[in-house]
């Protein structure tokens, strides 16, 4: 690729930042076509007999050494969340809105270390593929299982929306689209949606594994070049932090009216800590995360990986700091409509600082790094719908063909809703999409994680707690209005009752959820409400590969680690 780039550069003189960047766009399209074609080819090439070997490849199985496995695991972690949303939040609002992603991705691993092995074991003993499968088997309650499935389906939508915003940002900086009417204004978004939909149909459903190498190599090259080269070009890290401090101390967040933050003050401690904790507890409740975990080879794989994965938080932190590098570089992320849009800051920084061909490589890395997880998330959500809603409630006698058809249609529907999220909610703070999903998905934590340890909680009490958490969380998020525009759902941080500090709504709703579940459990126990039937036995939670009935689960497409 690099060989042909100078030739392309010679044909198209370097474009100014406002218009179409011909070279970068060409490189972006080139990589995209290569990746899509590779995926498509993989789908054709794969025969049923070789499914196992490809699966092994995707899992970084036996044939790979530790280093390559490590490489593949990390590549999945960098999505539009890390590349676009977190640096944008750092650029616009500072540390509380952005840098909490670092403690989030550190404490994530001790948390999953604790309970994920149990979920792996019990799922492999009973053939559970989704969180709702397990909840149904353990509680004997179809209603609770439905609640978990619906929440997983709903919460994935804003997460996919965030990936769409990432692709849109790249296209917009590359110059696709233009002002004028609303269709032209949102053209990059519609293209992003179309590309994602096509991608899922052709290759995403079959073999994300085969493009993992291309994708991860692109992502690593861009990250490493960016975090080493860019800070030195703007005057070193010391200057970067001084510039960021200057900006953060002199500006306020127009949406919330709060001052921006260089280093959190006492009033922001709770917000910072709860954002990190809530996000970490929420990530492994998503259907796509559970899929990735269940695809592991053995019970302890996830624990071993948990001890090497935090290393990626280091690069994530440096990527977040690129938002502050952009402040020092004086990057002006102005969209095609002439308005400042923070989400464009990293693509714009790359376009300003790098030769056009490398900007194109960076754009490709961001776009593909958003596309693959978005496809996998939508498929995981669609599978949850098919298994736990369609088959469990609507048409139990559905054939395999009907199931596959419903899955395909649903994966489109999920993306359609994600598009609606992007169009209706405030895009200026895209990280909020992920936080909104977190508010909902965290309400399934008691049903999933508590049940891995104990059946003390009554199934009806858990359902009531879930309902309280969902309603409270949604209302509290709705009531966070953008002070500049008056739009609802403008943030995910609100006053915590009793404590009187600002905190992540997901954690407050979770606390309410648990309290309601515990109190109602005592009431229901006293009233001798009927228990559901538990189909698991204690030994199930410790089963490992090689034990009776423990077989490889057909979990569908997945990455080796859940995308953050």
């Amino acid at each position, binding site marked *: 690729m690099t060989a042909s780039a100078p030739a392309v550069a010679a044909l198209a003189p370097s474009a100014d930042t406002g218009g179409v960047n011909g070279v970068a766009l060409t490189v972006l399209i080139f990589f995209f076509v290569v990746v899509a074609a590779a995926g498509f080819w993989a789908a054709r090439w794969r025969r049923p007999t070789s499914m196992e070997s490809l699966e092994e490849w995707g899992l970084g199985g036996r044939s790979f050494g530790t280093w390559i496995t490590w490489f593949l695991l990390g590549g999945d972690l960098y999505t539009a969340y890390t590349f676009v949303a977190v640096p944008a939040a750092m650029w616009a609002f500072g540390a509380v809105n952005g840098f909490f992603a670092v403690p989030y991705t550190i404490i994530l691993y001790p948390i999953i270390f604790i309970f994920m092995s149990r979920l792996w074991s019990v799922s492999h003993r009973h053939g559970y593929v989704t969180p709702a499968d397990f909840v149904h088997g353990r509680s004997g309650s179809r209603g609770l299982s439905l609640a978990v499935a619906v929440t997983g389906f709903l919460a994935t939508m804003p997460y996919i929306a965030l990936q769409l915003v990432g692709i849109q940002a790249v296209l917009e900086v590359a110059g696709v689209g233009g002002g004028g009417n609303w269709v032209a204004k949102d053209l990059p978004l519609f293209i992003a949606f179309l590309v994602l939909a096509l991608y899922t149909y052709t290759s995403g459903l079959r073999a994300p594994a085969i493009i993992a190498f291309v994708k991860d190599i692109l992502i690593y090259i861009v990250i490493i070049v960016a975090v080493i080269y860019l800070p030195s070009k703007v005057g070193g890290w010391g200057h970067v932090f001084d510039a960021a401090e200057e900006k953060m101390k002199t500006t306020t967040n127009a949406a919330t009216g709060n001052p921006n933050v260089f280093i959190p003050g*006492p009033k922001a401690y709770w917000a910072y800590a709860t954002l990190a904790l809530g996000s970490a507890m929420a990530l492994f409740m998503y259907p796509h995360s559970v899929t990735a975990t269940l695809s592991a080879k053995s019970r302890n794989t996830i624990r071993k990986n948990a001890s090497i994965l935090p290393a990626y938080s280091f690069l994530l932190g440096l990527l977040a700091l690129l938002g502050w590098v952009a402040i020092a570089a004086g990057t002006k992320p102005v969209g095609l409509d002439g308005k400042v849009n923070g989400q464009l800051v990293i693509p714009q920084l790359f376009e300003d600082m790098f030769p056009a061909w490398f900007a194109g490589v960076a754009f490709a890395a961001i776009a593909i790094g958003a596309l693959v997880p978005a496809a996998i998330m939508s498929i995981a959500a669609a599978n949850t719908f098919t298994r736990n809603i369609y088959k469990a409630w609507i048409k139990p006698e559905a054939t395999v063909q009907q199931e596959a058809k419903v899955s395909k249609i649903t994966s489109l529907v999920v993306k359609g809703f994600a598009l609606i999220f992007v169009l209706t909610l405030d895009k200026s703070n895209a990280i909020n999409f992920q936080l909104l999903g977190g508010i909902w998905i965290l309400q399934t934590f008691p049903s999933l994680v508590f049940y891995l340890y104990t059946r003390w909680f009554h199934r009806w009490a858990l359902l009531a707690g879930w309902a309280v958490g969902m309603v409270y969380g949604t209302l509290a998020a709705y009531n966070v209005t953008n002070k500049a525009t008056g739009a609802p759902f403008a943030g995910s941080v609100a006053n915590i009752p009793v404590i009187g500090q600002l905190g992540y709504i997901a954690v407050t709703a979770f606390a309410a959820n648990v309290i309601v579940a515990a109190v109602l459990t005592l009431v229901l126990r006293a009233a001798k409400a009927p228990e559901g039937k538990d189909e698991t036995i204690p030994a199930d939670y410790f089963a*490992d590969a090689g034990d009776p009935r423990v077989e490889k689960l057909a979990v569908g497409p997945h990455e080796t680690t859940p995308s953050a």
Partner: protein
Amino acid sequence: MSTTPHRHEAPPANKGLLALAGVLLAIPIVALLLVGTYAKDEPRLGGFPFFIWYQFLWVIICSALTYSAYRIVLKARPHVPMNPEGDAYLDADDAPREDGTR
């Protein structure tokens, strides 16, 4: 029911070692949630404010603690294979049991 395992209960475990692993895992969570202990600019390290480099430092510490916990839990509760034969539980305890162990 030829696939019913002999063993119904969790494999035996060294509770002390499990608790130790739990403590190791709790340390980074608690340390990073105490934001007040590290939300300051000075001392800087290579231009990086304390707030930034201290959290980077925890990336490494957390990795080390989690790996230690991994080695400990492997030792604390060695895997006991399930027996695929037989049609009754050895411990014959069918009642749902609250299992507070890891």
